[in-house]
């Protein structure tokens, strides 16, 4: 009777979106409820069968099956095979845990939060059931506001930074730009140019045929090199050309290369 559960359903053409199941735990709870079985004593063979049938159905419909569903399928099969092993009775003291125990704990815990979430949604929600004055009162608007930091979350800060980066250039902070060159790569290129030429004109590092991405990468590489004190930037006269020179190398600073910390910092922005 249960075998054709889902196929029957298809024939009945009851349409429902795949989102019906939040995940494998949700699906399992659904099957347990539908079959009216005791969650503490799940008939694992029957439930596994139905679970796999559902997976089969998804496949037939050419739907992508989330990895979590497959992992659970494997878990169910493993539990099923362990259930078939004879329980060794000789050692009464060390009780062998039921193969289903871990799964049942997870299901119970999940069910608990499911219930908690339905308790939440029936509360008097602000903006749905109850309303407050969520606008600046005219009394306040008439007064001079004084800016003081308070109402800002960490997430706002990260979001602000993300927006800046996306505005500057999508690829600027990507390790690989359109030219397939990262800031780190460009840093070493600029350094080797400087090794040979000792002094180069800033403008000569930016040529016409370079893409915008490469221009930006080059610029950031130079900034990074300044920060690492590996190069010096000199402008002889106001509005005159800018020259780059390798920083003094006597103390071996150059050999040390970019500071590991700084590179890590950089890594944080690379998507």
């Amino acid at each position, binding site marked *: 009777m249960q075998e054709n559960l889902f196929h029957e359903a298809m024939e009945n053409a009851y349409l429902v979106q795949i989102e019906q199941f*939040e*995940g*494998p*735990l*949700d699906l399992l709870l659904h099957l347990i409820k539908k079959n009216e079985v*005791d*969650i*503490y*004593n799940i*008939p*694992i063979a029957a439930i596994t069968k139905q679970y796999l049938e559902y997976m089969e159905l998804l496949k037939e419909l050419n739907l992508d099956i*989330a990895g*979590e569903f497959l992992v*659970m399928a494997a878990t169910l099969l493993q539990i099923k095979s362990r*259930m078939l092993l004879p*329980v060794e009775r000789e050692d009464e003291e060390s*009780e062998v*845990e*039921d193969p*289903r*125990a871990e799964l*049942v*704990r*997870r299901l*119970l*815990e*999940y069910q*608990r*939060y*499911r*219930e*908690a*979430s*339905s*308790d*939440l*949604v029936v*509360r*008097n*929600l*602000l*903006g*749905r*059931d*109850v*309303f*407050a*004055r*969520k*606008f*600046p*009162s005219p*009394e*306040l608007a008439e007064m001079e506001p004084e800016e003081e930091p308070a109402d800002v*979350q*960490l*997430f706002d800060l990260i*979001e602000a930074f993300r927006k800046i980066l996306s505005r500057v250039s999508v690829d600027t902070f990507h390790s690989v730009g359109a030219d397939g060159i990262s800031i780190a790569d460009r840093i070493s290129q600029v350094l080797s140019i400087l090794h040979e030429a000792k002094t180069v004109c800033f403008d000569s590092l930016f040529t016409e045929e370079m893409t915008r991405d490469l221009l930006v990468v080059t610029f950031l590489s130079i900034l990074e090199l300044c920060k690492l004190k590996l190069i010096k930037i000199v402008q002889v006269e106001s509005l005159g050309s800018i020259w780059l020179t390798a920083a003094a190398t006597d103390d071996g600073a150059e050999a040390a290369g970019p500071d590991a910390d700084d590179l890590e910092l950089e890594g944080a922005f690379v998507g």
Partner: protein
Amino acid sequence: MSGKSLKAIVESLIFVHDHPLSLDRLALILEEYERADIRIALEDLMEDYAHSDRGVVLVQVGGGYQLRTRPEHADYIRRLNKTKGVKFSQSSLETLAIVAYRQPVTRAEIEYLRGVDSGGVLKSLLEKKLLKILGKKDVPGKPLIYGTSREFLELFDLKDLSSLPTLKEIQELAPPDPFADQPALPLAEEPPAA
């Protein structure tokens, strides 16, 4: 009639503020008044609102006091605002519930409990400001830890986190079923009373 009573002052401050106003904040603003007197004024005000048949009630929510409309008037106000109000997906609600009860909590813990990837829903709840990043957990990998925000309390009409409804206890041991075709689970952490 003078309106210069402390109770009236407190009422006007709560009225004009667009978020719940805490006793601490009131005490800071009304520096010439004793904190104890402000507290009494608040209690009086709560009492007044509770015993009136007015359209507005004073509630304790999100760590402060706020004036809100009555739930039974929601329908009329929706007509005015032309909004249907917030709607949550099951995944958002599950995630909110888990974070609310288990905070500070990591993404991995949430995903273990829900059994599915929860990165997207976490991000969307952060964007809605219902969750916040509390910092990083002091374990290898330093994962981010999450908690609920003041906005969460405000949205769900909660005075504070301790006023969340108690999470249902998980029944630890099932009564053995003599008709079961499989042995009952020895799930109990503690042995059953022998």
